[in-house]
């Protein structure tokens, strides 16, 4: 994962598109989730006001996050929770490992946490000889296949049941060729039940952390976070600091939005509020920065930190649906991933803000009203300024800008060969015209509009009649 060479989005997407049937299926399946989201959202009369309210709460958080964090920590400690702070991924992984080491435990059961994906915790712990089992069914599947999740809510959405069947046959000994989802899920249930019953440490993510009460909320449909946490001696919950919300009552807003935006469900099956550890047990919360405070300082991009990880922008994104989550080579894929990733590593992720048509659908479905497509546009400007675009593209753009700023040259260039179409960057870099691979060029008309206008406009005709 982290050590592999990054393949650019466009290239990975081109590979993904080689299997047309698979792309169609991927697109239709995610579009179905988008439609479920629409149906669910449209049943809430004041849905748009709800989004606006959530956005305001999160904006308020961004400008008070320092104080809310201190309030949260103090309250969590009062509740008997142990709070840790990690400046980066390395710090986060070390803290988690130190808790494991303190308890002399070598096995962990983990529920879905995109933060631990971001920090590559599993790899780190594996090196330390600690076995991690992911308990969310989708994550469990991709973990067995040694793949990263391709979607933050639907980790195995890139796979078909035949793939899962093969994986389970190999690792769990299920019947070869049995592709019944019910059967496959039941097999995973049995296997993971044993895991839940034997693990002393459980790690979960955090959906919301409430400053006012020091509690955290974890949402799942499967109940896997709870099965892990309530059976273990130690519950470690990892959160990016932007997960904070001010008050308990604000959960009313976010829990109404989260699942409806994610899958169209009215709420996740379980919305669990962890406030105090069980008697004699421990809850640890690891608050992680890992670039978030830098993003907070980027005026144009800070409100990406409002994200509640519903995945709606991925489901609606026509590019994501047709390129697959892995093409984004980042823990969080899709439109939101493309505005978060450059903050983590500009050079490695310079391709992502360009993996969009800027259609704006992402912004419209976002439950906290992040201006995702505008930020994609703005990241492009930053990446160009910081020198993360190919020189050949810059040269082409400079030529274009000179011609387009000068009507005389433009008219000559236009006449001699339809300037703009021939100079769309990318063309000049390829011997083959990428437009022409699967599309025809438009016919060249006898005269341009301006040539026609010179002869046929009202003024021209009036002159003729003089």
């Amino acid at each position, binding site marked *: 994962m982290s050590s592999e060479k990054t393949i650019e989005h466009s290239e990975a997407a081109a590979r993904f598109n080689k299997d047309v049937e698979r792309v169609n299926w991927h697109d239709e399946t995610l579009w179905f989730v988008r439609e479920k989201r629409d149906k669910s959202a449209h049943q809430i009369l004041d849905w748009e006001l709800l989004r606006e309210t959530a956005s305001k709460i999160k904006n308020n958080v961004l400008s008070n996050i320092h104080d809310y964090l201190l309030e949260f920590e103090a309250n969590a400690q009062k509740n008997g929770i142990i709070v840790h702070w990690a400046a980066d991924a390395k710090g986060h992984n070390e803290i988690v490992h130190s808790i494991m080491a303190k308890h002399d435990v070598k096995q962990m059961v983990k529920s879905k946490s995109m933060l631990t994906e971001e920090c590559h915790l599993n790899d780190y712990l594996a090196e330390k000889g600690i076995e991690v089992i992911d308990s969310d069914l989708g994550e469990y599947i991709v973990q067995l296949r040694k793949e990263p999740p391709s979607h933050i809510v639907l980790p195995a959405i890139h796979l078909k049941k035949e793939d899962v069947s093969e994986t389970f046959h190999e690792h769990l000994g299920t019947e070869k060729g049995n592709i019944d989802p019910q059967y496959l899920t039941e097999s995973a249930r049995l296997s993971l039940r044993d895991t839940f019953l034997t693990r002393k440490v459980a790690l979960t993510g955090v959906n919301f952390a409430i400053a006012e009460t020091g509690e955290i909320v974890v949402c799942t449909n499967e109940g896997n976070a709870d099965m892990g946490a309530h059976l273990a001696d130690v519950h470690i919950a990892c959160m990016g600091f932007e997960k904070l919300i001010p008050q308990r009552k604000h959960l*009313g807003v976010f829990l109404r939005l989260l699942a409806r935006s994610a899958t169209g469900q009215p709420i996740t099956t379980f919305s669990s509020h962890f406030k105090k550890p069980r008697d004699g047990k421990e809850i640890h919360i690891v608050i992680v920065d890992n670039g978030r405070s830098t993003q907070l300082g980027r005026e144009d991009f800070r409100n990406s930190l409002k994200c509640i990880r519903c995945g709606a922008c991925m489901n609606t994104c026509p590019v994501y649906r047709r390129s697959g989550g892995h093409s984004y080579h980042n823990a969080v894929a899709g439109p939101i991933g493309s505005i978060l990733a450059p903050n983590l590593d500009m050079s490695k992720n310079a391709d992502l803000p360009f993996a969009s048509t800027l259609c704006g659908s992402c912004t419209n479905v976002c439950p906290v009203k992040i201006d995702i497509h505008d930020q994609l546009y703005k990241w492009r400007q930053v990446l160009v300024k910081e020198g993360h675009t190919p020189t050949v593209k810059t040269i082409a753009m400079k030529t274009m800008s000179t011609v387009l700023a000068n009507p005389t040259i433009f008219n000559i260039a236009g006449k001699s060969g339809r300037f703009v179409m021939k100079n769309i960057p990318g063309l000049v870099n390829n011997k083959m015209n990428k437009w022409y691979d699967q599309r025809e060029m438009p016919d060249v008309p006898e005269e341009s509009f301006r040539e026609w206008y010179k002869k046929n406009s009202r003024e021209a005709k009036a002159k003729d009649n003089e």
Partner: protein
Amino acid sequence: MSSKEDILKKIKQNQPALMTELPDLNLLSSDNPDVFVTYKTVLKNIGGDPVEVANYDEIIHYIKSNYNLKKRIITTIPELSEIGSLDWTNDDPHSLQDVELNILKAHFGVAENSALWVTDDVLGQRVSPFIAQYLAIIVHKKDIIATMHQAYERIGNQEYGFGTFIAGPSKTADIEQSLVLGAHGARGLIVFLLD
């Protein structure tokens, strides 16, 4: 400098001036003329089964006729001691692994999503609603409210170590978006709507 100080210092430097005050949640409408009908409809849609009952005897009768009493049934409700054991709340939670049915009582239910609010004091053990094969939750009809906003008004500053909203049985659609009930938690959820 410690990580905490370091992070907080950077945040203080980078966080914007106040963008907005906290919004008024009262503007969000909570009207629902028939919360009870909505509750039942939503519950059915997400895979739960609503059962209307007049009293505990009817619940006992229902359980007797629909579940195998030879399997392990637990509850925290003294009125149901005839069908479920009450003496498990101080046991090792792992010992609940063979529970077939757990019968609980919720503080209230929410019509818009059919979620039921339960906390430590009614759970017996935190893991109990997750580890049982099947789950039955009792809620008084008068305790059905319209939306999550009212839910949190009702919870207010309620003290608890753990609380959760439960909406329907445990589920997953991680294999090709095919819905399967009973991912890790309960395979089925009955909600007894009590007069």
